[in-house]
């Protein structure tokens, strides 16, 4: 994982250096207007006249020491900008995962124990719809329905939960719903097929035969063993979630990390882009590591050397 993240850092560093035009021109907004000596001076002041490996080394050194550079636009440290926006993205992502798990897993269990063919077909259709309907369209539709039918929209300026929990909850309602719908459908699908596989096992029959109650068998014996593929899917979905966060924050005007990344892209503010993309990659890697570690507590037979 560390090797992959090192690779990501090289990729991000390299991509930004591949940009058409030099950073100086973008920075000064003076394409072609600086004289050669002025250019050299500006390049020198940003350390851009050094060899690429040295530049990369310095960038990485600063990166691991928590210094992500300074925004081209506002001159503020990127680390500070990220720290200010991170709570919003964390709130959005954590609420979404919580809703997805709270809705998706019980519905999936329900779909696995029902004998009804209709419910089975419904679960499949819902699962496929969740994969097919773009979450940004769901988001736009939620806004449309809320404002058109209910004449309601949450306050425009983002309010943190510690300022006003009620206003914050209103502002999170639609974004979380739009993100959770698609992901929950995938989890329903996975939970159902994983539960069906486990419910066919001998030890489930044994548990039933020795007279345990249905609920105990379902949750203690079946669900616990079915959880591994479900958790795996939830971990993989984090990638979709992080992508979805970028669009969702943009649509709902939540000034989080995704919003910051897009504005960095639109304004060609490369230190901001580098910092946020790196953080997205680290988060994605960390979640997948956490999923691997969760396996061992779910199934003691799995051990890592």
């Amino acid at each position, binding site marked *: 994982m560390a090797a992959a993240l090192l690779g990501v850092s090289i990729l991000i560093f390299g991509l930004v250096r591949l940009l058409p035009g030099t950073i100086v021109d973008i920075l000064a907004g003076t394409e072609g207007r600086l004289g050669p000596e002025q250019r050299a001076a500006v390049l020198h002041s940003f350390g851009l006249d050094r060899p690429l490996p040295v530049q990369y080394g310095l960038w990485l050194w600063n990166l691991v020491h928590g210094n992500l550079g300074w925004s081209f636009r506002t001159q503020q440290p990127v680390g500070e900008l990220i720290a200010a926006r991170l709570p919003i993205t964390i709130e959005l992502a954590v609420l979404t995962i919580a809703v997805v798990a709270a809705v998706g897993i019980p519905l999936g269990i329900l779909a696995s124990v029902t004998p009804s063919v209709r419910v089975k077909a419904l679960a499949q259709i819902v699962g496929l719809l969740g994969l097919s309907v773009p979450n940004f*369209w769901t988001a736009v539709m939620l806004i449309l329905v809320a404002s058109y039918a209910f004449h309601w929209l949450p306050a425009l300026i983002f309010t943190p939960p510690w300022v006003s929990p009620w206003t914050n909850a209103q502002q999170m309602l639609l974004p979380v719903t739009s993100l959770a719908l698609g992901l929950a459908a995938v989890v329903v699908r996975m939970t159902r097929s994983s539960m069906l596989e486990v419910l066919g096992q001998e030890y489930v029959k044994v548990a039933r035969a020795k007279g345990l109650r249905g609920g105990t068998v379902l949750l203690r014996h079946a669900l616990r063993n079915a959880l591994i593929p479900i958790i795996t899917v939830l971990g993989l979905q984090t990638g979709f979630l992080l992508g979805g966060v970028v669009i969702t924050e943009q649509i709902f005007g939540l000034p989080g990390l995704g919003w910051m990344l897009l504005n960095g892209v639109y304004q060609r503010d490369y230190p901001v882009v580098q910092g946020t993309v790196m953080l997205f990659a680290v988060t994605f890697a960390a979640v997948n590591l956490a999923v691997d570690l969760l396996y061992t507590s779910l199934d003691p037979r799995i051990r890592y050397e």
Partner: protein
Amino acid sequence: MSRDAGAAVRVARLARLARRNPTAVVGAVVIGLTVFIAVTAPLLTRYNPVSQIAQPLLAPGGPYPVGTDELGRDELSRLIFGTRVSLYVGGLAVVIALVFGASSGIAAGFYGGWLDNATMRVMDVLFSMPALVLAITLTSVLGPSLTNAMIAIGIVYAPTFARIARGPTLAVIGLPYIEAARAIGASNAIIIVRHVLPNVSAPLLVQTTVSLSTAILTEAALSFLGLGTQPPTASWGLMLSTARQYMLLDPWIAVLPGVAIAVTVLGFNLLGDGLRDVLDPRIRTM
């Protein structure tokens, strides 16, 4: 067996598969219709999708079955021509991912050693970025345009194909018939084409179908963010994005592009599910 009888057997087998996989048939029909609409777009539309021909934001009805957009362009014509952009960008992006990913995956598995190591490490790096975030970063570097969105999506999905192609390649190259082929003097190229490729083609076909659905979604997302297809070209993602400002006046312009995306993507997902059931019975979806 005569040629006709052979054909009849194949048709019968296909019919049996179709009966067992009604979802795949529905998917194939949806995709068939989408492709038909894309190909015959100029014949199906009455108006040029980029020319302003009427009042803006007209309600559905009359000469404009689903109304006009914010610039007075016929919404139906734009939806129909949007099919072209979606399939073109999604399709070519997946071709890029397939060619680049599968060939490097097969080469990595076949030759092994440092090539395998280097290739798969590069793929790991691409894999460790959330897909849309990587696509956004790539398009921001390449510059926002339809072609660059296509290239970016191709790069993003290549690692999946590389991993899928490498596994079966590794499994096959140790088998006696590969050794036999080598013994009779077959070159590496011949062994790869004649013996390795048939073994990786089934999983690659399933992945291609599934990737088409995600590639179309990603194109729509990039265009929605202004990083993909540029105006005035009709793209569903872009149409949805501009519709946001006017949807209280005319909800249709926000509803329909999303429906178009969802139906097309659903078609590929249905076909992908069905193909997986047929070609890879070990991983059954529900």
